[in-house]
């Protein structure tokens, strides 16, 4: 299955790209993170402490247990600092 992945703030900077399309068989976000981390050091570094990260699935904030069934877009970023 193809999923669009987006990175924001220092996650984007660490990984070095704002978005990419990946082919994955992961069933949930944890699985996707494991696949990405196995790829390259910069991914492993960015995902080394997921307690410092937030994830949105199809533009809804969720947690790392969220299923990827039917999902088109996953975004990783640090806690928001708006307002």
């Amino acid at each position: 299955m193809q999923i669009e992945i987006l990175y924001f703030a220092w996650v984007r900077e660490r990984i070095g790209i704002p978005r990419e399309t990946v082919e994955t068989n992961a069933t949930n976000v944890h699985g996707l993170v494991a696949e990405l981390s196995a790829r390259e050091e910069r991914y492993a570094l960015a995902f080394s402490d997921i307690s410092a990260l937030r994830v949105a699935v199809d533009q809804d904030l969720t947690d790392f247990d969220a299923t990827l069934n039917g999902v088109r877009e996953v975004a990783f970023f640090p806690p928001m600092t708006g307002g």
Partner: protein
Amino acid sequence: MLSVQSNAFDPGDILRNFSENVGGAGAVVSFTGIVRDNSGTLDHMLIEHYPGMTEKAISAIMASASKRWNLTACTVIHRHGHLNPNDMIMMVATASSHRVEAFQAADYLMDYLKSRAPFWKKEVSKDGSIWVESKAADEDALNRW
């Protein structure tokens, strides 16, 4: 009304227009966030956001506020991109028949925008740049509601 924009806005114009179109409400509360230069070395601020999700998340927060309190009007404006010290970052305005509801709704909107709308602030100074870190207090503030 919701606007996510890179352009500057004038809080005076926003409040004037808002106050003149509150549908008979007697109480209007506004909050304006301004770029501060805490260190004295800030050159500018960069605000990144997540187009698409930003509008969706803020709309959900506004709908939630309108469900909890009797609001006759509600406005959120939030800038992204390049901002200078003393620039207005964002603004919230609420209108209600009762002052307590207008206050609570504005306070609630701010708490949720702070931690649930996908914006990230980066402070750029001559010495380098740093992503603003979220505060535990901001996350804790959500438990008030």
